[in-house]
């Protein structure tokens, strides 16, 4: 069927409003009587909270409310409720929110925050995930420093017999790779504006890139039904995964309900860089069994993900990595161990590419090292191993709409690279 609109290069729906400066982002929304927020963050990376004294902060002229964990209807949120809206027990990273102030302006709120006294018994933190995995390491979380997938400390993907594959191989190629922590670097920082009304409803202007997940999460924090919380958002000033975790809405909402006034909280760029979620680092070890003809017949990958202090989306991030780290190639014997390890850093979480970014980086450098080891051209090694239609991944997912060979052929043509005829004659639909 011929298509009329789909496939057309129509202009971006809201492009003109964006470039004309008409689009309203959360920080553009000003409500009369609005209060401003600053937050007291943990000065240490690990410690037990003994006492929180907000009395001096409350006396500052212009302060409308100071809240701590006891003011939050349900102070736990995130994966399995393991994160605190405002931590009142034991902090796990420097910068973790402990108390929040709503005041007539940001300077007054900051002054009040400076008067909050928190007595924390500091403990020894651990920052290196490789250290954190050791049995005698300081505990980041009471449940242990390694996320448990069932009864295993890692996500296991097992296909065929990897050891038998290594024995059958003509050569073994190993490689270690490290992918660092990355910041999303989105333009719009975390911002929230919560506006209560006389009927008991709360309207929240949000930067969320997952409105309904956050509606559910915020209703759980506030212990309110979904019809009492009214989210306004949907046009986000850059996300890249930084706005899948709730950063600001819960604290602005609790302050708004406590004061009965509109409350805005906008993070500074410094807070964004230091304390928001980020892409956690990855230590990856690849061991590949390769035949002289270039076929990879066995791959073992052991990946350790620095998840920071809380689970957040990290168990999912490691799953996504583990399912596909064997790459876009048919390998009959695969063993993957994906570890999510906790350290006393701000939580890692979702970022564009999730766990596939490090997998693509390591796996594709590894492919060139394999090509070098067996003396085969980098293009040809990929054509030899590329998935074909009807083959399956390491998780035994049978594939359709496979096109890696055609994509590489198109790349070669576009780049003006003359590939040998035998590679240009190949197709994803040909059986191996």
């Amino acid at each position: 069927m011929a298509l009329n609109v789909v496939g057309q290069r129509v202009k971006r729906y809201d492009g003109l409003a964006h470039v004309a400066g008409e689009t309203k982002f959360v920080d553009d929304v000003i409500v009369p009587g609005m209060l401003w927020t600053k937050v007291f963050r943990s000065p240490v990376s690990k410690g037990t909270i003994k006492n929180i004294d907000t009395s001096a902060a409350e006396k500052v002229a212009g302060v409308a409310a100071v809240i701590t964990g006891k003011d939050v209807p349900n102070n736990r949120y995130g994966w399995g409720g393991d994160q605190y809206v405002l931590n009142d027990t034991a902090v796990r990273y420097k910068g973790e929110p402990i108390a929040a102030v709503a005041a007539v302006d940001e300077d007054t709120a900051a002054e009040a925050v400076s008067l909050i006294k928190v007595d924390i018994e500091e403990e020894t933190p651990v920052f290196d995930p490789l250290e954190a995995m050791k049995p005698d390491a300081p505990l980041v979380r009471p449940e242990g420093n390694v996320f448990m997938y069932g009864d295993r400390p890692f996500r296991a993907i097992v296909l065929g017999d990897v050891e038998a594959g290594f024995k059958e191989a003509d050569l073994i190629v190993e490689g270690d790779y490290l992918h660092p922590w990355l910041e999303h670097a989105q333009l719009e920082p975390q911002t929230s504006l919560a506006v209560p009304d006389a009927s008991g409803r709360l309207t929240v202007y949000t930067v969320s890139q997952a409105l309904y997940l956050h509606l559910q999460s915020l209703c759980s924090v506030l212990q309110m039904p979904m019809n009492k919380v009214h989210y306004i958002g949907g046009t986000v000033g850059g996300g890249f995964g930084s706005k899948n975790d709730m950063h600001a809405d819960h604290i602005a909402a609790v302050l708004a309900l406590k004061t009965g006034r509109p409350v805005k909280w906008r993070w500074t760029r410094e807070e964004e860089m230091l304390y928001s979620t980020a892409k956690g680092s990855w230590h990856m070890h690849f061991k590949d069994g390769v035949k002289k003809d270039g076929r990879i017949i066995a791959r073992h990958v052991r990946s350790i993900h620095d998840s920071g202090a809380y689970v957040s989306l990290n168990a999912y991030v490691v799953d996504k990595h583990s399912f596909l780290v064997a790459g876009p190639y048919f390998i009959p014997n695969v063993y993957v161990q994906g570890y999510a390890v906790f350290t006393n850093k701000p939580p890692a979480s979702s970022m564009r590419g999730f766990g596939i970014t490090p997998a693509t980086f390591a796996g594709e450098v590894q492919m060139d090292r394999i090509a070098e080891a067996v003396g085969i051209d980098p293009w040809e090694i990929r054509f030899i191993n590329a998935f074909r239609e009807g083959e399956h991944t390491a998780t035994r997912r049978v594939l359709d709409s496979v096109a890696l060979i055609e994509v590489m052929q198109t790349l070669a043509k576009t780049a003006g690279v003359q590939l040998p005829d035998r590679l240009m004659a190949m197709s994803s639909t040909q059986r191996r």
Partner: protein
Amino acid sequence: MKKRGVGIAAALYPTGMSGGGDSSQAIVKVKTDGTVDLIIGSCDIGQGAKTVLAQMAAEELGIGYDQVTVVNQDTDATPMCFGTFASRVTFVAGNAVVQAAREARSILFEVAAEDLEASPDDLVAADGKIFVRGAPDRAKTIAEVAGKANFAMRKLVVGRGHYMRNPSSPDPQTGQTDPFATLAWAAVLAEVEVDTDTGEVEILKLVTCYDVGRAINPLLAEGQIEGGTVMGIGATLMENLYPFYPTQAWQPESYHDYVIPTAADVPEIVSAIYECPSTNGPYGAKGIGEMTANVPAPAIINAIHDAIGVWITEVPVTPEKILKALEAKG
């Protein structure tokens, strides 16, 4: 000395949440003049979700893109969507939008059938009209039909759409699972120049090819590719949140010390789009939003190896790492 090299990398990326179970809903409401409100819970994070979803609704209803208003700003009005991540919106929300638009269209067809003396099954919507298949002269405008639905037939023209892949949790022993809706494929070629005296890497050119399944809007697909490619350049050569990892020492606090690419850092980028339609996406679409940031790093690193014969196994590739690797190589 300046040395040049070429490298390639290939990649796949899954569409939708790994493990499934991520739903999106859509409501298509036809006003009495035939213009349309597309009501969705999906956020636009700058990638153009509103645009491509409006294109799909317009396509199914046979109207122009400018006849569609997107309502996505308000949870009082909009239905459930898991969110804008996991390269899922074009595919998952798109499937829901197509279903909703088709249901609204079927109501319009029922209304039009009597006047056109045809079965609703024989009707087609295109160019702002509903007409009998093979007889475009036997037509009513969509505006006429939408008006008649309300004023004569007492009907509300609303379509509902819902899409969710079945959840699939991995086998605890083997990890066996069906984790994604479809896979998109990619390959990137990098040309670099390495200064062996300073360790600096200049990217001369990046050529990319992405399988998007079906480009709902090629302009926006190219935007995703170019934006992701530049983000990938930052991750390859510049960015590191913990420069003294694993410690937090000297953690950057601003864009003064966490340097990301600017327009001045962008090399020539040539983007080719390949279309291998998915079997289950709207018009065959696949999600490529995220993967475009993943592929530059290995292509650039492989090009560096081609140029100077060293393997860089840690990103970002700083001049310091290049010089140390050259020194170790001797």
